[in-house]
C-alpha cells in the first residue's frame, strides 16, 4: 500500500468513529483526542478497525505512537513494510 | 570369475535378506507391533530377486500388497519399510500406507496396492507415457494368479497389445487366490496360453529358480525396450506361509506345503552356486550375519520413529499450491 492509501484508510476509519470529523479539516500533527471527541473506547474501536482493515497488530504499548494523523500513517507504513 | 561370483553373492544376499525380514515381520505382527494386514513373500523370493536382476533403475515397478521383497530388492531401505509397518512418520510412505502400500518415487516404485489388479491399469499408463515420450524403458507389473480373473486384467492385456506398450505382465502364480486353488476359479489354468491369445508372448518359467527367472525377464525386457510391445511371464511359484496372518490354511494340506518346501529357492541356489565353485558356506554365514544386523537396525529405527502429528492429517490430500 502507498502512504497516501494508508492516510485515506486512516481518515475513513476515523469517520466511522467520529462521523462529524471532516477529513479536510483534520490537523495532521495535533493529537486526534484534542481535535475530536475521542475517549478510550473510541480509540480502542479505532485501532481494532485499523487492525481489521490492514491486518496490523497494535500492542497497547504502541498507543502513544499513534496520537496524531501523521504518526498513525508513519506507524502503519512501517508495520506494512 | 569374480563378476559371476559377485552376481551369485548378490542373488543369495537378496533372497536371504527377504526371507529373514519376512520371518521377523511374522514375529512382530504376533507381538502386536505390526497391525492391519500382512502378506508374506516367504517361498517366492526367487521371482522378485530374479526379475529385479534384469531390470534397470529407470524402469518402473508396479506391485501388489505382497511387495516387501520387491521393495527390498529394488533398494527401498529396510529401515523405511519397517518404520512404515510400525505406522511411523519416518516410514517410506510417511506411515500412512502400512505393509500393503510401500511407495518410493525416487526408485520409480509405484507401490503396493490393496485392490487385486488395481495397479495393472497404472502400469499400462506408465508404459503409455514412456512410449509417448519415446523413452526406451519398461514397466514391470507384478500380480498374482488371482488378478487374472479381474476384468481389468483382460482390458489391460488387450490395450497393451493394441497400443504395443512396453509393459511386462509378471504373474506370480502361487496356485492360490487367497483361499481358492487355481483349478477352482480358472477355466484355463495355464495362464500363459490365455495370455498368448491376446497377441503377446506368454511362457511359463520355474519361479523357484532365480537364474531361470532372471534369464526370462531379461529377454522379454530387452524385446519390450526395442518396442516389440508387452509380454506375459507366468512364474510358477509357491508361498510357504498363509495368505495373510489371519488364515488357518484350511484350503491346502500340510503335506503339499512340505512337498513345495523341498524346492525352497534359497538352498536350491546355494547348492547350484557351491557346485559351480562360486560360493562357500562361509559366504552364507557372512550373509546371515549382515542380514541380522540390517534387520535389528531396521527395528531400532522403527521403534525410535515418531507418530505424525494429528495437525498434519489433511496434508497432501491435494498438492500444495505452488507459490508464484
Amino acid at each position, binding site marked *: 500500500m502507498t502512504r497516501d492509501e494508508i492516510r485515506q484508510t486512516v481518515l475513513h476509519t476515523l469517520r466511522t468513529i467520529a462521523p462529524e470529523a471532516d477529513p479536510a479539516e483534520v490537523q495532521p500533527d495535533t493529537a486526534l483526542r484534542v481535535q475530536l471527541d475521542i475517549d478510550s473506547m473510541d480509540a480502542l474501536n479505532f485501532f481494532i478497525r485499523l487492525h481489521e482493515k490492514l491486518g496490523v497488530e497494535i500492542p497497547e504499548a504502541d498507543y502513544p505512537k499513534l496520537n496524531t494523523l501523521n504518526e498513525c500513517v508513519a506507524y502503519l507504513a512501517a508495520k506494512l513494510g | 570369475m569374480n563378476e559371476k561370483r559377485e552376481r551369485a553373492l548378490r542373488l543369495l544376499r537378496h533372497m536371504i535378506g527377504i526371507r529373514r525380514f519376512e520371518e521377523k515381520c511374522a514375529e512382530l505382527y504376533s507381538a502386536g507391533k505390526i497391525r492391519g494386514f500382512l502378506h508374506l513373500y516367504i517361498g517366492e523370493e526367487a521371482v522378485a530377486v530374479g526379475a529385479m536382476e534384469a531390470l534397470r533403475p529407470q524402469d*518402473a515397478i508396479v506391485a501388489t500388497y505382497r511387495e516387501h521383497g520387491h521393495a527390498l530388492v529394488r533398494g527401498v531401505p529396510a529401515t523405511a519399510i519397517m518404520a512404515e509397518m510400525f505406522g511411523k512418520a519416518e*516410514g*517410506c*510412505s*510417511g*506411515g*500412512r*500406507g502400512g505393509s500393503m*502400500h510401500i*511407495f*518410493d*518415487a525416487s526408485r520409480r516404485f*509405484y*507401490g503396493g*496396492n*490393496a*485392490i487385486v489388479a*488395481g495397479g*495393472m*491399469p*497404472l*502400469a*499400462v*499408463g*506408465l*508404459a*503409455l*507415457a*514412456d512410449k*509417448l*515420450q519415446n523413452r526406451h524403458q519398461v514397466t514391470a507389473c507384478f500380480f498374482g494368479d488371482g488378478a487374472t480373473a479381474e*476384468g*481389468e486384467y483382460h*482390458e*489391460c492385456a*488387450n*490395450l497393451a497389445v*493394441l*497400443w504395443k506398450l512396453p509393459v511386462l505382465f509378471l504373474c506370480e502364480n502361487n496356485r492360490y487366490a487367497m483361499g481358492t486353488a487355481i483349478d477352482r476359479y480358472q477355466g484355463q489354468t495355464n495362464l500363459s496360453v490365455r495370455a498368448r491369445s491376446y497377441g503377446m508372448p506368454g511362457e511359463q518359467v520355474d519361479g523357484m529358480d532365480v537364474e531361470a527367472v532372471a534369464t526370462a525377464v531379461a529377454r522379454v525386457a530387452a524385446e519390450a525396450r526395442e518396442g516389440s510391445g508387452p509380454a506375459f511371464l507366468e512364474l510358477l511359484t509357491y508361498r510357504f506361509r498363509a495368505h495373510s496372518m489371519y488364515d488357518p490354511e484350511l484350503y491346502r494340506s500340510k503335506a503339499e506345503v512340505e512337498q513345495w518346501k523341498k524346492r525352497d529357492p534359497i538352498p536350491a541356489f546355494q547348492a547350484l552356486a557351491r557346485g559351480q565353485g562360486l560360493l562357500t558356506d562361509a559366504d552364507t554365514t557372512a550373509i546371515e550375519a549382515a542380514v541380522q544386523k540390517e534387520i535389528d537396525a531396521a527395528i531400532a529405527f522403527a521403534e525410535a520413529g515418531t507418530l505424525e502429528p494429528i495437525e498434519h492429517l*489433511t*496434508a*497432501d*490430500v*491435494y*498438492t500444495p499450491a*505452488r507459490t508464484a
Partner: protein
Amino acid sequence: MSAQRTTYRECMRMALREAMQRDPRVFLMGEDVGMYGGSYAVSKGLLEEFGPERIRDTPLSESTFVGAGIGAAMGGMRPIVEIMTVNFSLLALDQIVNNAATLRHMSGGQFSIPIVIRMATGAGRQLAAQHSHSLEGWYAHIPGIKVLTPATLEDARGMLWTALEDPDPVLIFEHASLYNLEGEIDAAAGAVGIDKAIVRRPGKDVSLVTYGGTLHKCLQAAEQLAQAGVQAEVIDLRSLRPLDAETVLASVRKTHRAVVVDEGWRSGSLSAEIMARILETAFYDLDAPVERVCSAEVPIPYPQHLEQAATPQPPGIVAAVHRVMGRHV
C-alpha cells in the same frame, strides 16, 4: 473486443484445441473421441488436426483407460480422459477413488496426478434410468479430487486449461442439456478460475443456490419471481469440491432465506451438504427453514412427462421460494 455467437459445445472444443496446441504433454483419450468425433461431437475435427497418437479412441474398458490415464499422468503426461457419461464412470470408480484420489496422501506426498476426466451428466433427453444419472454429488464427497460443473459459455471455454494446470485430479461434469446452449462470448475469452462460486443474478429476498444443468432453470424461475415482486439471488456454485461456502453464506446472511436446487436425489446429496453448512454457520440469520428442490427418489423414467415430473423444473423452484417467503402456497 468483438463478441462472437457460439455454443457451449464449440466453447469446449476451443478449450480442447487450445490445450493441445499449448502443451505437447496434453492428449485426449476416450470412447469414440477420434474417428467418430465424440459422442456429443465435442472433439469433432481434432483427430484430423492432432493425429491418432494424441486423439486416442479406446476400447470399451473404462476402468483400464481411466487407470491408464492416471498412470500416464504419473508418467509425466497431462491426459484428458473423456468418459462418455457419468453413467459409465461407475466402472472406473475404483481407479478414480482408490488410485487418483488416494495415491498422493497415502504415499506421503510422493505423487501428483495431473489428470482431467470429463464426462457428460444429467437427465432430460429421455434416455431412461441407466443413462440419466446425476452423480456429481458422489464425487464431491471424495477428498483428493476436484469437481467442476461448467454451466455457462465462459466456463465451458475457460475451465479446462485451469484444470489441466492443476497438479491434482480434476473431474469436469458437462450437463448433456447444455451442449446446444447458444450465446455470445468475448473472442479473447480464456482461462477462468475454478474454485469460486459466482452470483449470476443479484437479489435481496432469497438465495437460490444451484450448479450445472439446473442453473438456467433457476434463472427462469427468478425471472418469474421478479414479476411477483420477489428478488431472488441466483448463485452458480461452478465448483462442488472445493465448495465455495463463503459466497453462499454471504448471500444467506443478506437474504435470510435459501432454496437449494440439485438434480441429484435428495438423500445424502450435495444439497444436503450445502444446507448443513448454512445451518452450521448462518443459523441465526435464517428467518425460515432452508428449502430444496431435487429429483424425485426414483430411477429416472423414460416417458417425457414422467421425466419432467421427476426432475427439478422452474415451477417447482418458484413454489419452493414462495414457501420459504412464508406465503401460504
